């Protein structure tokens, strides 16, 4: 038995060396099973040891078998560790990727239209002040589009906007402004009211700088004690939110039948900030919209008490504002669905 143990020592060393030369998880496991497995050589030795009767000899042989087993266990553990290292090394040993390779368009982000970006920018900023978004019909009756807005029939103010009429429905028009929305909102809600009304509007116009459909947003506040100073304050807030805190506005007296006093709104030219450039025709200012205090005739048309309540309204073109903000000088590009043009825009308006 002594001899068998000695032979085993040699043959294990031989086999282990062979596995060590070309390590694989399977070879190591096979070696372990052959020696230490339930039917392996070492358990067999322990089985044989049971047959030795001489106590002293049994003690010596047992010690020798234990030593052999320890050696084998240690060697296999070493082999396992070395094998794991080799596998890891093989996994890591690959040429580095070209991380600059272009990737599939399959998971590319989409985009929002610049007019939507501008709409969201304005609406989100006003939502911070507690404004609610309202909308209304685009095919509208002349009551909502004109009469209730203090533009009676046969008044020259009806010519201020070239209106699309609906065939067979003489009292319907395509809304020429988003101001119809304030009438719907006021008929539906009691004051105080803070609303922002973005939407599509239509005018009979089609040239390089006008499209028959475009977008407006109107900002309306009705409460006790709303003043012209508040009108100026909200316009300035809005324009600073759209551009930045250095933006300035100014108002010029003008006439929109549904407001009085009424004004045209100018803002500092977004390109030159007042120093004069081609965009603002050297004036330093850009005309962006109209505003004023809601006319008492409008309040009376919606049964608001014009003595108790006063209100302000401010409207401007979203398309033009988007052009200024994002530096696009051709309005017509907005409406032809050009994929490569539209694709450039993000989901959230850049500052």
């Amino acid at each position, binding site marked *: 038995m002594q001899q068998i143990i000695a032979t085993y020592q040699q043959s294990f060393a031989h086999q282990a060396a062979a596995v060590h030369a070309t390590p694989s998880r399977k070879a190591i496991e096979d070696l372990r099973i052959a020696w230490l497995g339930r039917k392996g050589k070492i358990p067999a030795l322990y089985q044989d040891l049971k047959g030795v009767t001489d106590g002293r000899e049994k003690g010596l042989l047992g010690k020798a078998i234990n030593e052999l087993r320890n050696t084998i266990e240690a060697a296999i553990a070493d082999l396992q560790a070395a094998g794991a290292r080799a596998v890891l090394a093989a996994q890591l040993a690959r040429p580095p990727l070209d991380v600059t390779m*272009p*990737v*599939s*368009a399959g*998971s*590319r982000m*989409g*985009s*929002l239209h610049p*007019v939507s970006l501008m709409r969201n920018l304005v609406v989100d900023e006003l939502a911070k002040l*507690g404004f*609610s*978004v*309202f*909308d209304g019909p*685009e*095919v509208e009756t002349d009551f909502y589009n004109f009469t209730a807005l203090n533009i009676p029939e*046969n*008044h*020259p*103010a009806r*010519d201020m906007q070239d209106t*699309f*009429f*609906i*065939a067979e*429905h003489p009292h*319907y028009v395509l809304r020429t402004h988003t101001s119809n929305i304030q009438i719907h909102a006021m008929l539906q*809600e009691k004051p105080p009211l803070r609303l922002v009304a973005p939407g599509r509007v239509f005018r*009979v116009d089609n040239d390089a700088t006008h499209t028959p*459909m475009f977008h407006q947003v109107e900002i309306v*506040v009705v*409460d006790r*004690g709303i*003043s*012209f*100073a*508040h009108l*100026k*304050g*909200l316009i300035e807030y809005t324009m600073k939110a759209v551009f930045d805190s250095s933006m300035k506005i*100014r*108002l*010029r*007296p*003008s006439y929109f039948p549904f407001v*009085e*006093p009424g004004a*045209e709104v100018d803002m500092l030219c977004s390109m030159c900030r007042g120093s004069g450039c081609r965009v603002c025709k050297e004036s330093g200012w850009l005309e962006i919209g109209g505003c004023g*205090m809601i*006319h008492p005739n409008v309040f009376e048309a919606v049964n608001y008490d014009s003595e108790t309540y*006063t209100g302000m309204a401010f409207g401007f073109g979203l398309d033009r504002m988007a052009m200024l903000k994002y530096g696009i000088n051709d309005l017509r590009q*907005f409406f*032809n*669905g*050009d*994929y490569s043009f*539209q694709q450039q*825009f993000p*989901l959230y308006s850049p500052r």
Partner: protein
Amino acid sequence: MLIARSWLQDYIDISDLSDKTLAETLVDLGIEVETISSAAGLDHQIVVGQIVDLAPHPNADTLTLCTVRINEDAASVPLSIVCGANNLSKNLKVAVAAIGSVLPGDFAIKAAKIRGIASQGMICSVRELGLGDDHDGIWQVDPQWAIGAKISTLLGYDDAIFTVSLTPNRGDCLSYLGIARDLAARLARECSFPEIAELPPSGLKTSKKIGLEVSSEAGCARMVLLYARGLQALPSPLWLQKRLLASGLRPLNLIVDVTNYCMLELGQPMHAYDYALLQGEVLRVHNLNKHQKITLFTGKDVDAISTDLVISTESQLLGLAGVMGGKAAEVNAETREIILEVAHFSPAVIRATAKRLGLTSDAAMRFERGIDQSAIPLAAKRAAQLLARCAEELGLSDFSCSEDLLEYHPKPQEARKIALRLPRIRRLLGLYELSLERCTSALESLGFILLDTTDERLLFAVPHFRNDVHREIDLIEEIARMIGYAAIPTQLPFMEMQPNRQAPLIAFSEKLRLTAASLGLVEAISFPFVSYADLDKLRLGEQHPQRQGIALGNALSDELSLMQSSTVVGLLKAVARNRRYGQKGSRLFTSGRSYLRGSGEQAIVERALLGAILDFPLLAKSWCDEEQAPGFYHAKALVEALAAGFGCRPSALNWEAIDAEVYPWLHPAAAAEIKIAGQVVGWLGELHPLVGIAYELPNELPVLLELDCQALFAGVETSQKLLTFSLARKFPLVARDFAFVADAALTYQQLAAVIQQYPERRILQGVELFDLYRGEELGAGKKSLALSLSFAAVDKTLTDQEVDREASGIVSWVEKRLGVALRA
């Protein structure tokens, strides 16, 4: 309107103001200044020429070949100029821009051949010279002007011309005097009215020459007539011509020019009739009993109807009151005696006529906005004074004018009185310190008269010329205008907090757009206009609901004549355009509305839509991908993802094959209607090949989808109510794969439903289809569906036996229920 600075100076001293300051002051008053130009910029090479011969153009009926002399020297060679105007005649003196000269707008005159004939310059209209808006033929210059003289020198222009744009409420500013009046108030200066003398005694009485009968008090509130004789239709004195030209009107003759001058000066339109041509004793202002044709002075025939106000004699129609004069008694070369008509006509009546007939005139524009009734006799006297002055300057020695006015004025105009409350002004403007005195002085400077003051309440009389001032707010605006908007502070209002009152659908639609974009779709916006041809291209039958569209009464073109009934046309056109520009694989979405005829009170129904289109290829070939065509299932995945974002699980969506009659633009075999809880929320499908051809998308057809925002929102809300969430699994999931061979007609939904209904189900967690196969070895009309069933228990790790028992139970259940077989 054009305002010449030199003329304005007659009424207010502005000599110390620069052009820029003057413009800024006007703008501050609400009088928009569009441009400031100088007629001094007129090229010195533009000279007076005389047409010495005329011949028709050999190759064009509308063109004339003019021989024009621009040099007094008879030996010089005249120019040969091709001209398209219709008011050319021999010996006429005209403004000629010879080769080498430059017209306003940097328009350089070059040698050119027009329809094969060389033209050595251009005969100009008033507008081409930048002197006014008149483009009705060429400008016939004063025959006294010397051939070859420089037009710029003759006009003596060192003047600034302000192009002002007036809002429709400010009819009172449609004159030099009106502008001067507003400026004077703002600048606290004197506004000097021209000195108008009473009519000198002449022994002539207007009332002896003609009668006046107004039968429409509502249409005409006041009219005066004035008789004058000893006139001739000569060119006006140069100073008058220059003023008209500077203000954009073409000088015609003394009589017409004086009426125009008065209109520009005072804002009062007037009309002169040739007295000799009046057939009758009485000038009548009335409505017609029946339709009647009237020939306007322009030669155009129009149909006057009973609501139009007309001027006539017993036997002639003379014109459309306040809109346009007729041919009948028009001032002409033979005119020696005139009747001058100065009147106030109802704005609404004038507007209705002008609008119906599409006629615009300087007179109608002023009447529509309202003129100053009280100044009518004064305006007539001013005209008489100017006629007398011109007659004298032109040597018309037998000129004389009646010493009276024949007047119709049933009801003297009463001044409106308006009360004004100081606290109201302060609160409305946000100027809490504003003084009573400041308000009073502002209004008084504008001609308002303070009648009474009680505490903080002021009573004002409105001046006659301010037709736009009716109530307190109008006075407050005047005060704000005088103080200047810049002097009002800038503040945010204090307001109480409130719940948001926004309709939930608005926020939903917005989120839907954002979700669509985050799924890789690019937003496009198109005009919601389509044509009847588009309806045909979409193969919509006569009875199709989407044919019941809304047509525009005044469309820009046939192509843009109907309101869209879906987003399809806009999307198809966008993709076709992208393909034309070499852009493949566009993936667009759009949010728009459909506009359809409704019923009852709701004549027109609008619905918010989200449409999308996936063009070929869905995925372009690249180093890591194969090219992939878009198909029905890609669009379906998009819809599922859109709904999933709102907590609407794929199992809540139902997909039903379409009725090809309802969706004729879709491929009948590759399209579906989408339902949630039994309600249609949209559709999707591959494009019908015929529609593809019609929209120039003949091959590699795109896939489209459209969702009705409101229906989807309702569906999402319903399915959200059923939404529950379970805890994470505590024990592992085990899978078993099976393939069933079934009839091709068996839908996946049928198969999945049967599995879900397995009565002894205990541990089945999920069913996943991982392969679909059709092959000859399966037999004709058969397909193989390979499913992976997954199992797990909530309380332990499953044994193989437990899994196999339920899996085989399911297989036999499916085999029995659907008559399918496990694939060998």
